[in-house]
């Protein structure tokens, strides 16, 4: 579960809560109106950073936004590196969307006047784009992308490790190669200290898969865009604590109540 604030938990516990979404495309863009029109200053578009959700495209410009993640297919599998997908259909943004630009969706919980922090929902790279004029003669663009897991489809060409190398060091080096960091839960999980020879002829993705298999799991990219090993054995044990109508644990003095 992603880290959330107490405010988020409070809002989600409200039966009248709902969610808002926004999406950031690219590293930067032009300042636009709520309708998506570029705001000009002396005839010149105003370039703004799109590094945060507050400068993202609001729901009013988004027709549909879907993400899909499948750790395995028809039965439990291990030794895979899974890419999450995104499909975004929205009004064509005013600015130029560079090739393989970033797409970062966010969600926040709302209830009355309360607004939680934005929760990042993945980091994707545009793979394909299609433009059509299907909404009141306005151009509509459909973007499809994958997360950084596909960046591991490259040869293990360069290394600074001493081989044979320890598994977590290999994972750290692969993550650095594709420009991401390693989720802290993965570091906590990979304590076996298995060593591997220099993987000549294998891709980063294959190497990650072989390491994942030896921990009975698969690698995925988290919502924060970090590399994470998910083991089949990492599933928390089923509990029977008292919960509220939303499914959250009811605590007494901070302790959960077993029933």
């Amino acid at each position, binding site marked *: *579960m*992603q*880290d*959330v604030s107490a405010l*988020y938990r409070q809002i*989600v516990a409200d039966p009248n809560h*709902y*969610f*808002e*979404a926004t999406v950031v495309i690219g590293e930067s863009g032009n300042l636009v109106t709520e309708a998506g029109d570029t705001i000009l200053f002396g005839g010149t578009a105003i370039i703004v950073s799109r590094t945060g959700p507050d400068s993202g495209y609001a*729901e009013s410009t*988004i027709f*549909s*936004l*879907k*993400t*899909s*993640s*499948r*750790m*395995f*297919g*028809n*039965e*439990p*599998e*291990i*030794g895979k590196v899974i890419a999450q997908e995104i499909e975004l259909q929205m009004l064509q943004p005013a600015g130029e969307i560079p090739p393989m630009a970033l797409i970062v*969706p966010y*969600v926040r*919980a709302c209830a009355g006047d309360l607004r939680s922090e934005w*929760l990042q*929902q993945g980091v994707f790279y545009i793979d394909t784009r299609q433009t059509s004029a299907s909404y009141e003669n306005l151009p509509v663009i459909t973007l499809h992308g994958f997360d950084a897991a596909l960046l591991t489809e490259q040869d293990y060409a360069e290394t600074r490790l001493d081989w044979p190398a320890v598994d977590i060091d290999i994972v750290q080096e692969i993550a650095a190669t594709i420009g991401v960091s390693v*989720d*802290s*839960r993965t570091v906590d999980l990979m304590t076996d200290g298995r060593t*591997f*020879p220099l993987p000549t002829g*294998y891709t980063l993705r294959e190497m990650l898969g*072989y390491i994942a*298999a*030896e921990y*009975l799991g698969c690698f*995925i990219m*988290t*919502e*924060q865009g970090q590399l*994470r090993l*998910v083991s*089949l*054995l*990492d*599933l*928390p044990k*089923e*509990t029977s604590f008292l*919960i509220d*109508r939303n*499914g*959250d644990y009811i605590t007494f003095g901070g302790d959960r109540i077993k029933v």
Partner: protein
Amino acid sequence: MAETSIFNLLSRVASLDVAPAFQPYSKVVIHVDDDTVVEAGDDTGRTLEFNDPFGTQELAEQLLAKLPGYQYQPLYAQGTLLDPAAEIGDGVSIKGYYSGIYQRDRTFGKLMQADVAAPHDEEINHEYKYKSPQERKFTREIGNVRASLLIQAGLIEAKVSRESPEGQTSFSWLMGDTSHTWYANGRQVMRVNANGAEIDGKITAREGYIGNGSAGFSIKATAIYNGMTGLNDTVHNGIYIGTDGVALGKGAFKVTAAGNVSANNMELTGTLRVGGSSIGASVLRQGAQSAYSNGSYWTGGAGGGYNFKSMADNNDYTAKYGKFTYLTVANANFYSYALNYKDWNGNNQTVYVLGHG
């Protein structure tokens, strides 16, 4: 710090499909490469299989030791109101069923609806280990065929092998920087290099040519020839070997399919057999000389003898020597007379004497 959590969805789900929990795992199989498989455990439960070129027997046993007690609960829930803070790998409890979130399709909106699943294939989780004859045949035909393609600097190797109850077969080729070689069941059958091709086995061709590019042997469906173009070709020098016969040197020597031999000259150093009988060289020579000197010839006759024929009238015929078992004389000056006498017992006997008049 983010942690693995459990989400209780209670009944907030549009539809829920649940299958019985899988049997616990009792076996780990690691495919190290095409030819090497290591495994640990037995077949009393499910088997976990994966590929790992670094896999060892020790690893298989270590992983198996971690699996007891782990049971996979398949479920598929559509239209859940799953908290957007949930992640892949978190636990989810729906209507009393508990499993992990291993698939998630989300639609962003005010409700943030999601389809979540711990997927399964209903056909896979058979409790009764039965395979139909068709499934077994499919496994034999498809599952035991392996193929590999190895590409390295200066070497490309491709191999397809099949294992079946009838045995193991394979075919492969290997291409290096100086040669290209084909193998069948591990035995070299063809090799091509700068000097040409070496083939160890049968060659079948509709047509072809063996030579230097301008002259040589032509290969047709019914003949192989060089120079000569047919059995009865008397213009071109060469050789012709066909289904209708064999010929050499503009037809100077020819044997037809019917067994008729013609040759400009022939020298025999051994025995000539005619009609099942041997004729020595001296007999042939003397007979031929005699027949020739008398302007006639002889032919084979009944009883293993020979008949002179077509002898002209009023000519004398002589022979240095000869032996007649039967002699038939017509209009010749031969006569016979009977000589009668009594034998020792007093009985009359007659002998016939051939005389010359």
